[in-house]
């Protein structure tokens, strides 16, 4: 499933980083602890988090993640949006809570 297909399927808002929308997703990772993501997230996963600052994009880019989803209707900082454009990492948003969106995405990737 591509990032753009995921966004469409679950009605995710696309804040920025459109150039990365065609990337193929391998699965997801849920964490609000940045060193946890740094240590354990895998390439091409979507990262679901409530963190909104720009270090999120720095990490997503360093880890080659497919996209970042910000939960609970939280708005990304302006620098986060800017950084997402620069790095080509799609920054998505949802009003859903982590449990709900993670559950929906999990179903997509369950074998």
């Amino acid at each position, binding site marked *: 499933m591509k990032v753009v297909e995921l966004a469409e399927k679950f009605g995710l808002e696309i804040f920025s980083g459109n150039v990365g929308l065609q990337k193929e997703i391998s699965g997801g990772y849920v964490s609000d602890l940045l060193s946890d993501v740094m240590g354990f997230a895998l390439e091409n996963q979507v990262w679901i988090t409530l*963190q909104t600052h720009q*270090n999120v994009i*720095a990490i997503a880019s360093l*880890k080659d993640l497919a996209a970042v989803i910000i939960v609970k209707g939280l708005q990304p900082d302006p620098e986060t949006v800017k950084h997402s454009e620069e790095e080509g990492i799609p920054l998505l948003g949802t009003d859903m809570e982590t449990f709900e969106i993670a559950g929906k995405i999990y179903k997509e990737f369950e074998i």
Partner: protein
Amino acid sequence: MAEILEFHIKGGDFNLAGKASSKIKKKLIQLGVETSTIKRIVVATYEAELNVVAHAREGKLTAIFEPDSIRIIIADSGPGIEDIDLAMEAGFSTATKKVREMGFGAGMGLPNIRKNTDELEIESKVGVGTRLEMIIYY
């Protein structure tokens, strides 16, 4: 001849955190280093860079690209680490509230560094600073 990249890291400046790691990653891709090796280097470099930002005043990161390995030295002036063995334990952190609210301060950085490096040396003097030297073989 080994190529060398140097970066200045400013304590407290979370906006620029990760810049040095990003440049080192680009260089490694250019050099054609294997992807799985690049991933290990990136994790270790980022965590070390971030520790200077989160805990120290300022630091210098030196990356030495050898034919078969990368050697990275991160030296900072800052509070230093009182008990290195304790700091290496997963979950140990002295991060401030502000740093924790950003999602840092899980006490996972140093364990991540240990896990992703082939050689790691840490020296620290309380009230003076900390120096990490790590080697990752390609």
